[in-house]
C-alpha cells in the first residue's frame, strides 16, 4: 500500500541481513519501496538494495551520520519522512534503529511500535504483530496514524532478490542547523573464533547454572566438537563472565540454528525471545520447573556441569575430537 520507506544499515560494505529482510517484505505490502541510508559507506550497498526491490534511495554520505549517535541522522530522516509522507516506515530492530526511530517519533509526533515480527496491509492501515513477554504473547495492533514507525525484529522475514537494477538516488546533505551531539571516538572490537552465532548450525549456550566464568570452557569444547558457536544468557553477560557479543535474547542476538543446546539456562523471557525460533532445542537444567523445558524437544533435569562433560566424552567415543 503506497510508498514504504525502509531505513537501511551497512556493515562492512554490505547491507545487513535484516536490511534485506525489510526491503524484501516492504515490496510485498507496498506499491513502491524507498530506502534511506545514512552512512558514508552507503554507495556500496545500493545495488543489493535495488536487487531486493528498492526503487528509490535517499543517501546521506556525510561522515557525521556515522560518527555521531542518532541526532544528525534523525534530523535529516525526519525531514525526509515529513516530505515523502510514506504510508509506513520500517526500521531495523537494532541499537541504531531504535535510537533513530525514537528520535523521528519525537520530532514528528508519530507513534513507534517496537519488537514487531510481522506487518501486513489492512485497508488504509497496517496490522502489526509484536511479540511480548519473551515472545510468549503475540499482540496484534492496528495502526491509526499517518506514517507509523515500526521496528522489526531480525529474521521475521525472508530476504528475496528480484534482480532489479540499482535504485534512483537522491543525496541528503547535512543541514547547517542539524545538531551533532554524542560522538563516537573509538570502536573496540573483541575478536572471536569459530562460526558467528547467527550463522552457526549448532549453538551451545550457557547461563547461571554453570556457576562460574571458567566453566564456559566446557561449552567451548562442546561447540568445537559440534562445529557450532557459543552463546550466553543476559545474566552471565551482565555478570561479566563472557562478552556481550555472545548474548542471545531480546537485547542480544536472535538465533535460529538447527539445534540449540541450553546449558544451565532457566529460560527468562528475555532469553527465550532470542532462541525460540531454533529448529530443535535441547535443555539441561537442575530445576524441573524451569520455563526452558516448556519449549525444549529434549529436556534433561540434571546438573549441566556433569551432563556437558559426559556428553563431550560420549561424542569423543563416537569419534568427534
Amino acid at each position, binding site marked *: 500500500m503506497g510508498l514504504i520507506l525502509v531505513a537501511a544499515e551497512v556493515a562492512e560494505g554490505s547491507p545487513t541481513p535484516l536490511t534485506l529482510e525489510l526491503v524484501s517484505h516492504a515490496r510485498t505490502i507496498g506499491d513502491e519501496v524507498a530506502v534511506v541510508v545514512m552512512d558514508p559507506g552507503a554507495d556500496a550497498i545500493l545495488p543489493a538494495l535495488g536487487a531486493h526491490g528498492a526503487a528509490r534511495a535517499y543517501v546521506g554520505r556525510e561522515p557525521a551520520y556515522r560518527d555521531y549517535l542518532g541526532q544528525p541522522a534523525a534530523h535529516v530522516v525526519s525531514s525526509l519522512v515529513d516530505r515523502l509522507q510514506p504510508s509506513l516506515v520500517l526500521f531495523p530492530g537494532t541499537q541504531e534503529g531504535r535510537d533513530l526511530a525514537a528520535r523521528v517519533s519525537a520530532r514528528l509526533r508519530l507513534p513507534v511500535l517496537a519488537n514487531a515480527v510481522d506487518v501486513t496491509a489492512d485497508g488504509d492501515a497496517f496490522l502489526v504483530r509484536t511479540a511480548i513477554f519473551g515472545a510468549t504473547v503475540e499482540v496484534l495492533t492496528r*495502526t491509526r496514524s499517518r506514517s507509523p514507525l515500526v521496528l522489526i525484529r531480525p529474521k521475521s522475514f525472508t530476504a528475496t532478490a528480484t534482480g532489479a537494477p540499482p535504485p534512483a538516488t537522491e543525496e541528503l546533505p547535512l543541514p547547517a542547523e542539524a545538531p551533532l551531539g554524542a560522538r563516537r571516538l573509538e570502536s573496540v572490537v573483541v575478536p572471536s573464533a569459530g562460526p558467528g552465532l547467527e550463522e552457526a548450525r549448532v549453538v551451545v549456550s550457557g547461563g547461571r547454572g554453570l556457576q562460574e566464568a571458567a566453566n564456559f570452557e566446557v561449552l567451548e569444547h562442546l561447540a568445537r566438537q559440534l562445529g557450532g558457536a557459543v552463546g550466553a544468557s543476559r545474566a552471565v553477560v551482565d555478570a561479566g563472565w563472557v562478552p556481550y557479543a555472545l548474548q542471545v535474547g*531480546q537485547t542480544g542476538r536472535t538465533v535460529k540454528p538447527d539445534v540449540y543446546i541450553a546449558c544451565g539456562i532457566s529460560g527468562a523471557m528475555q532469553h527465550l525471545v532470542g532462541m525460540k525460533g531454533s529448529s530443535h532445542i535441547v535443555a539441561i537444567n537442575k530445576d524441573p520447573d524451569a520455563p526452558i523445558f516448556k519449549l525444549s524437544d529434549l529436556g534433561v533435569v*540434571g546438573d549441566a556441569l556433569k551432563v556437558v562433560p559426559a556428553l563431550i566424552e560420549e561424542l569423543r567415543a563416537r569419534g568427534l575430537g
Partner: protein
Amino acid sequence: MKVAVFVKQIPDPTGVGRLDPETHLLVRGGAELVLDPGDANGVEAALRVVEANGGEVVAITMGGERAAEVLRKAMAMGAASAIHVADDRLRGSDALATARVLAAAVTRSGCELVVAGTESTDGYTGTVPAAVAELLGWPALTFAKALEVDSGTVRIHRQTPAGHDVVESSLPAVVTVTGAINEPRYPSLRGIMAAKSRPLELLSVDDLGIPPEEVGLAAAGQEVISAAPAPERTAGELIEDDGSAARRIADYLAELKVI
C-alpha cells in the same frame, strides 16, 4: 549537578506476565510489583555520578498510586527527592506520550543529566529515553556499560555486537545503561528510614502543561486488536539425568544428523 533517573514499577519479571483480556493492557494487580531490575542499575549509576561530582539524584516515575513505592526504594538507595507523575488520564499511554511526560518532568526538575535503563523489563520497547532526549534537544548516549562524568563531559562505553564504542558528549545529556554497568546497592535500614521523609512531588498532566487529550489510550497511535498466547512449541521428552542423559543427547544429535 542534578541527575534525574527514570524508574518504573513492573510486575515481578521472575513471574509470568499477563494481559487483561478486555483492555489488552498489562495486568499490574496480582503479581508482586517491583522496581524494574534494569532501573536499579540506573539508580546506582546516577548515585555514583553525584558521589564523584557532587550534587543530588532526582528519581522520576510515571504510573499509578502504587508506583510511589519504587520512588521510595530509589530514595532509600540514596536519591534526594522524587517526582511522581500520576494521572488516571495517562492510562494506556504509548511510548511517545510517556516520553513527552517524562521530558516535561525532567525540564521541571532542572536536571542536566538523565540516566535510564536501556529498556523496561516488562514492555521492552526501548524507545522512551532516546525520544526524551530528542524532545529536550539533547544527545542520548545509549547502551552504556561504563559511564564517567567529568567537568561537563559525559563519556560512556557503549555495548556493540563486536565489542564497545567509546562515546562522548557535553552536558546536558541522556544516558541509558545496561545491566553490565554495575551491581546495584541494597538500601540500608538508615536509607529506608530517611527515604520516608524525603520530598516526593506528585504531578498531573496539567501541572506539566501537556494537553490531556494528547496522552492516554485514546491518543495512542495504534489500537490493540487482540492479544493471544504465541503458537506454543510443544514440550518434548523430559528425562531425569541418571548418568545416561549424555548418551540420550548424543543419540538425539545423531537422529538430527548433527553428528
